């Protein structure tokens, strides 16, 4: 656990500091506000989800993208599991404010409150799934476009905590279902998480 904690904070030149920005006005056009509110209500109404995902990561240090796939499960309001099955089994669980990563025999946990540079990574997806607009706005400006059947939400960090490298997050969806989740980083690295169909038990 300590290993992880140390490691997380080891991004070059990354002393930890808290980024607690006051909620700011959304940059979403006034006309779109009611739609965004409706979307948030729709998302918040969803209590569970269990879907397949594929992820493509493009990293500057690598010549070719890394592909992975697995399953995502969600229980409102703050339990999220990302279970990677390929190429290497690994599980990431967010429960309450605690992140747990398991692969093989290794288990690591860390508390998000301790790592302000990590919180936006996790809150962006959790708060969107939970339809928790105020949690999103604590970290991001929200730019909503489209309509409920085909929406697009761009999250731009309000203020970047030292060591935090998110440039923007682009989420698309259809109604209460999230379809893609793309993170672009300041150094050009980016990843695209594509959410597949619901797995019916």
């Amino acid at each position, binding site marked *: 656990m*300590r290993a992880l904690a*140390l490691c997380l904070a080891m991004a070059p030149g990354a002393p930890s500091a808290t980024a607690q920005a006051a909620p700011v006005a959304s940059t979403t056009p006034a006309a779109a506000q009611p739609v965004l509110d409706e979307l948030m209500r729709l998302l918040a109404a969803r209590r569970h989800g269990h879907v397949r995902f594929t992820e493509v*990561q493009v990293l500057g*240090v690598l010549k070719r993208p890394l592909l992975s796939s697995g399953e995502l499960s969600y229980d409102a309001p703050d339990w999220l599991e990302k279970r990677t099955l390929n*190429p290497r089994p*690994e599980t990431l669980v967010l429960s309450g404010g605690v992140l747990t990563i398991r*692969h093989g025999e290794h288990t690591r946990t860390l*508390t998000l409150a301790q790592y302000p540079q990590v919180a936006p990574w996790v809150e962006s997806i959790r708060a969107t799934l939970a339809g928790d607009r105020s949690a999103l706005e604590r970290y991001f400006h929200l730019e909503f476009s489209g309509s409920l059947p085909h929406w697009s939400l761009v999250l731009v960090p309000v203020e970047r905590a030292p060591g935090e490298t998110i440039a923007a997050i682009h989420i698309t969806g259809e109604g209460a279902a999230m379809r893609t989740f793309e993170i672009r980083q300041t150094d050009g690295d980016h990843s695209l998480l594509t959410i597949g169909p619901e797995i019916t038990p």
Partner: protein
Amino acid sequence: MMRPGASGTLIWALLGMGAAAVAARATYTTDLSAFLPRSPSATQRLLVEQLRSGPAARLIMVAIEGGEPQTRATLSADLARRLRADPRFAAVNNGDAAGLDHDREFLFRNRYLLSATVTPQRFTVAGLHAAIEDAVATLGSPEGMLIRPLFASDPTGETLGVLEALAQGRAPPTSAGVWASPDGRRALLIVQTRAAGSDTDGQEEACGAVRRAFSEAREGLAAATTRGVRMRMSGPPVFAVASRAAIRSEVVRLSSLGAGLIALLLLAAYRSLPALLLGMLPVASGALAGVAAVALGYGSVHGITLGFGVTLIGEAVDYSIYLFIQRTVLWQLWVWPTIRLGVLTSICGFAALLLSSFPGLAQLGLYSIAGLEAAALVTRFVLPAWLPADFAIADLTRLGVRATGLLGKLAAVRFYILLLPALAAVYLYGHRDSLWNHALSALSPISAASQAYDTQLRADAGAPDARYMVVVSGADRELVLEACERVSHKLARLTASGVIGGFDSPTSYLPSLASQHARLQSLPPPAELNARLSAALVGLPARRAALKPFEHEVEAARAAPLLTPASLAGTSFETPLAALLMKSGSGWAALVPLRAAGPQDIAEADAARVRAALGDEPSARVHLIDLVGEADRLYAGYLREAQHLALAGFAAIVLLLGIALRSPARVARVVAPLALAVITVGALLVALGHQLTILHVVGMLLIVAIGSNYALFFDRNRENPQHASVPLTLASLLIANLATVTAFGVLASSKVPVLADLGSTVAPGALLALLFSALLAYTPAPSASVPPTPE
């Protein structure tokens, strides 16, 4: 012409001034060392040394309890920030990110010196290929988010390896960003003072600084949020400060309470202020003589000796009681010899304590011997001359007569009363397996509740006291570290096979210079690394150009200086290193605490397997020690010693009585009631849930030493009935006994266990000694014989 006794007064005055001068210049100590035994074996010496002054003795555990988790976390962070800025503290850890800055920097910068995976093989083409392939796989996983920033400068993952080796599940869990107990109810901080463990003043200042910082942090928050939030501290510095404070206040409290109560008792008995003041003269002289003797004999006087000293008041006052109440023209002939023998038996008892390995007990012995001696001599040679011509105290004949009547009634049922010791003996025999307290902690002035809280906090902090520990000792630091690395290899195999759960080695923080040197030698020179890296990347997705930082850092590492203990300054590894690696005597020693694989302690069989696997080292000594077993052995030794001393003291008293009384029957009549009292008190203590400690044993010796005085008076009355007033003897014994019971009873109320144990043994013991002596000596007086009243 000199008044009779004037020469005695003169000598007394001169000696008194000398003693006062010595006492005034004496040093007074209050640390716990009086009840830490002088250590016998080298291992035990190391342990006791560590206990007294090692880095562990400088650790304060701080818990913040009550209120909301977020409030506790905020207070923890604020408290840590304040303490980090305070030069009185060497290290402050609370698990918050701010505390890890130095650690991160240190580990990352020195990864090629610290990582055990840095070998020549690791930096071959194949080795680099395998390491980088592994790191790339990690990059794509959720964990990748964490190592991504490091990949370009550390593609072989050495930093992560070092972190994992260090982590091993040692740190407490975190809640709201700071260390917390597993149940989440308290936030935890571990603070190391700069003051040495033996520097109680420095520790007291540090404890005060923590308290002040906490109240400042608390005042920084809204009163509503901090309602019910409190801070508690534990650990050796806190204990040292608390026990010093306890001993100081106890000495004052017990002495004034004891003296006050005894003064009231005597005032009630004598109804004469001059008598009371004169009666205190031998006591004050005795106390002064005792302090002076201890100061001369031991160089310094322990506070706790003064605490025991209250018992001296109880006994020394007896002599003047006998003088005042049994004052006849023939006092010197018929009373004094009995007192003299009583003093000598008491001295025999206390003399046994002089041989004790506990400096506290030895001091008590010397203090009491000198004190009683002085009190008795003052009573005999100074006090009579000071008595005014019209000196009179209330006539206690009536009290004596009433006591005689009561005694007669008791004597009628004495068979039943004497059944008590018989039952007690049976009871003790029945409980013979659980009589003794075998924990050294029973002597600690720290309350059981505080000790339990300390254990709880240690468990919460993930740093429970290890039961087994490998001790590696050798001539110098490097020899010890090198041996320690070989020991670590063996222990790693035992961990892998599940015999033990893990271990902490100082070499995780500070590898031997030889290992560090070998690791640097494994790093290829720049041109070589360049070529090998290019070849290693064939077939891997990593971009060649992106790994330039790696090449630069390896090159820089090759030229970097090797790590020494000083390199760890300012990191949170400084504390564990200092706790695990230390100078010991003329050489060095490393401690490697072992963790059990499960929640239970390591089993004996597994310990034997560890011992067998460790084997011998050519250049260092390696021992597996069982701390619990070692402490048990240590304590068992002292308990045995106390028992032997008590028996020796008892034997000396019997011998003395044999010489003085010249009659085995008389000796038996004197000793029998004392033995019965000891047995009854022993059973009483056990029945009340006490387990007997060394101090109880010493208390039993004192019952014999003090009780013999009573038995001797009954013996005298029996031998020379024509010279004694039975009621007055009884009255004087009753009052003397009450004074003793009061003094020891006050001691029994002490919060310091060593004092309380002694008091709770001697107070009832003295009472019973008087009762049994009276009952065994009782012969129904012919109704016609009215005892003569003095004068």
